[in-house]
């Protein structure tokens, strides 16, 4: 039990002692990405090898070196998993396979020698240490400082790494108002999309002095397709999120905390549950924490597959057991939130920033990032880029630095076309914006939003009209149906977009889309609806000529839109074998045996069966 400040201090001393006793730490990444590529098997194999070897021990013993094999959170380099790092040598191994474990055991764990062939390589150069790899070296990891460096299932490791020191400081050295003011001074803005100053929210909830009950709610319903930062924090450093929420509870006078986690994140749910159980068991959650008057209880709610629940009032409605539909505001969540009580609602990354602010102070936090957007931002970097994964950079970093310096540029054969930022509520940034600083306000200027931080890089093979249709079909499907502009408007916009990619676009469609977009943005009830047209507007702005080509010329320059493809047979390659004729489901291909065949484009349904099955590559697509 950790019931007093002294007990926490003592626990920390022991936890550090225990950590230092480990001569060698083997960190196997157990983030969703690496687990998918088989890291749990690697973890088990390395653990088994260590257990079976008489020269090392996984238990703490005096006479043999102690090896710790640990499942860590996301180490960030998702595409190159399974990842294994061996400390204290700081060797970073990538794409580790079962058969590599023995060599890691013999050479690195037992003798401290590197296994060079498992190093990350770029342009012919091998990188031994994470600190040398440009992808990792150019990041500033604050929210993610523990993620990938500690055992995500061990409270002791979190405490040894300085965990709960902010809570301790707040409880014993600061008044609740001090905590609110520090957060306010730090300029921390909500990382979930809106960028609303967190301090202001906290002040408003704290001001409800006579409320009989207040709540702290965490939005872990990271629904933006292409974003997985919050999931990584929940599964990689769950304690930090909980500590951030507890600081919120102390600051505003709430004793109940709820985390609403997406149903698609089973690992986040499992790790959070475990963390809460461990903390309850030792008294760090519950009544009279560390012997003070502060009590805090945590609850987890699993989402049930409704994107709109990322909206504040829909999320609280869902926790209460209702349909997750937003309501008209005001009253706002800070005044009447969960069960009608004053509620602090922030997202995962925002809470994870709070312990650092309390520990190191608002001035330290303000020294990172830009004046109006302080601190760092995590992004999930995906798409047609060399290094995909989870990154964290100071606010105000340019897109070019992120894509080229950290992301390693585009994949071979790809040319940069656009970056989709902010998911279905965001927009596209193009070449012209590569050198603009990424912060809340500058991105807004270009008709996009930072959003929760999904960055999907698109190359010349991506059809921007199709991308717009994709997002619109997503928001249309996820519209809760409560307000007319969103329910009917997104449906109409989707119909027009489907018409355009289907080769039936009409003159005036672009203007009609813009008109509908303007109406929806101005009249929809909640953020989901208001921002739903943004991907369409921003692609029209930046790639209007692509829309025009689809509508006027019935052409898709990327060959993405099936209906606009034209299949042709190259007479130089066709030997007249007749295979395509047999495969064609609609009898559109004719030609005599051993002579060049022909596709009747009027009959062709563009299924591609002829192209897929031609042994001579004689069928090609003309755009």
């Amino acid at each position, binding site marked *: 039990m950790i019931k007093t400040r002294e007990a926490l201090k003592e626990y920390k001393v022991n936890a550090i002692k225990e950590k230092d006793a480990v001569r060698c730490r083997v960190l196997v990444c157990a983030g969703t990405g690496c687990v998918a*590529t088989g890291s749990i098997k690697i973890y088990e194999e390395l653990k088994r090898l260590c257990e079976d070897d008489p020269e090392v021990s996984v238990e703490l013993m005096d006479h043999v070196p102690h090896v710790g094999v640990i499942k860590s959170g996301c180490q960030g380099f998702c595409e190159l998993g399974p990842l294994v790092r061996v400390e204290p040598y700081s060797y970073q191994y990538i794409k580790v396979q079962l058969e590599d474990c023995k060599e890691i055991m013999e050479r690195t764990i037992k003798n401290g020698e590197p296994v060079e062939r498992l190093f990350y390589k770029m342009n012919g150069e091998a990188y031994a240490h994470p600190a040398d790899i440009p992808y990792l070296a150019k990041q500033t990891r604050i929210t993610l400082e523990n993620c990938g460096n500690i055992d995500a299932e061990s409270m002791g490791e979190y405490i040894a790494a300085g965990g709960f020191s902010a809570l301790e400081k707040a409880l014993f050295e600061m008044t609740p108002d001090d905590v609110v003011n520090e957060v306010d001074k730090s300029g921390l803005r909500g990382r979930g999309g809106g960028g609303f100053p967190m301090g202001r929210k906290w002040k408003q909830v704290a001001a409800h002095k006579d409320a009989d009950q207040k709540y702290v709610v965490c939005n872990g319903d990271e629904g933006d397709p292409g974003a997985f930062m919050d999931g990584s924090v929940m599964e990689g450093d769950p304690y930090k999120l909980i500590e951030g929420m507890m600081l919120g509870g102390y600051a505003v006078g709430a004793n109940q905390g709820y985390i609403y986690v997406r149903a698609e994140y089973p690992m986040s749910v499992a790790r959070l549950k475990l963390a809460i159980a461990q903390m309850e068991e030792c008294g760090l959650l519950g009544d009279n924490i560390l012997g003070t008057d502060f009590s805090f209880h945590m609850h987890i709610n699993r989402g049930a597959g409704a994107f709109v629940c990322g909206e504040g009032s829909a999320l609280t409605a869902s926790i209460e057991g209702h*349909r997750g539909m937003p309501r008209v505001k005001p009253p706002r969540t800070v005044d009447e939130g969960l069960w009608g009580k004053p509620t602090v609602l922030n997202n995962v990354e925002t809470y994870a920033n709070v312990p650092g602010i309390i520990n190191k102070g608002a001035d330290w936090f303000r020294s990172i990032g830009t004046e109006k957007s302080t601190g760092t931002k995590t992004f999930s970097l995906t798409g047609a880029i060399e290094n995909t994964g989870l990154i964290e950079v100071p606010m105000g970093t340019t897109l070019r630095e992120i894509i080229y310096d950290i992301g390693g540029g585009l994949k071979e054969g790809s040319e940069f076309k656009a970056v989709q930022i902010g998911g279905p509520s965001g927009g596209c940034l193009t070449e012209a914006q590569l050198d603009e600083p990424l912060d809340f306000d500058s991105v807004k200027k270009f008709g996009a939003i930072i959003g929760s931080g999904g960055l999907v890089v698109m190359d010349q093979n991506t059809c921007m009209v199709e991308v717009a249709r994709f997002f619109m079909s997503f928001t249309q499907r996820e519209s809760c149906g409560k307000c007319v502009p969103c329910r009917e408007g997104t449906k109409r916009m989707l119909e027009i977009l489907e018409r355009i990619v289907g080769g039936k676009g009409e003159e005036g469609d672009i203007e009609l889309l813009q008109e509908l977009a303007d109406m929806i943005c101005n009249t929809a009830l909640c953020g989901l609806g208001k921002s739903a047209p943004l991907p369409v507007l921003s692609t029209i702005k930046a790639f209007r000529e692509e829309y025009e080509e689809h509508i006027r010329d019935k052409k898709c320059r990327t060959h993405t839109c099936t209906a606009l493809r034209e299949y042709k047979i190259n007479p130089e390659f066709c030997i007249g074998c007749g295979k395509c004729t047999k495969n064609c489901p609609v009898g559109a291909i004719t030609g005599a045996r051993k002579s060049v065949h022909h596709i009747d484009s009027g009959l062709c349904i563009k299924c591609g069966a002829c192209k897929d099955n031609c042994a001579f590559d004689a069928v090609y697509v003309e755009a």
Partner: protein
Amino acid sequence: MLDQSYYDKTDEIIAQYGRKESSLIPIMQDIQGEYRYLPGELLSYVAKEIGIREAKAFSVATFYENFSFEPKGKYIIKVCDGTACHVRKSTPVLEALYKKLGLSKKKHTTDDMMFTVDTVSCLGACGLAPTMMVNEDVHPAMTPEKALEVIKKLRGEQL
């Protein structure tokens, strides 16, 4: 009619969350976790037990995409169609599965109740796009061929 064991199990789940309105969603989730779908009779029973109107319970259940009144297959395959997966060609993976299993956008579950194929908006493993999830396991970097391999393997496990 469902047999008594279903009601006993449901009682157990209700007891765990308590007879209150806010327990509805977690109760439905656990029932679905147990039976891979949400039997309508059980939902009516839950509504009565926790003291809410039946209409309310059904309105909530139909609002959220995760709840299904139709029985689902032993293996629930969710093909990710998030942005990253979409631009890295997740559609051919879905189509290959549909074709192999004789399923479509309208028909999600095979007649032998082995496989259910759905899409999902994001699995949070975008770095490994395109991905799909089989029950709770995420499979990375899918291609139509790899997806069919997975099916073959799951079928093999069954034999």
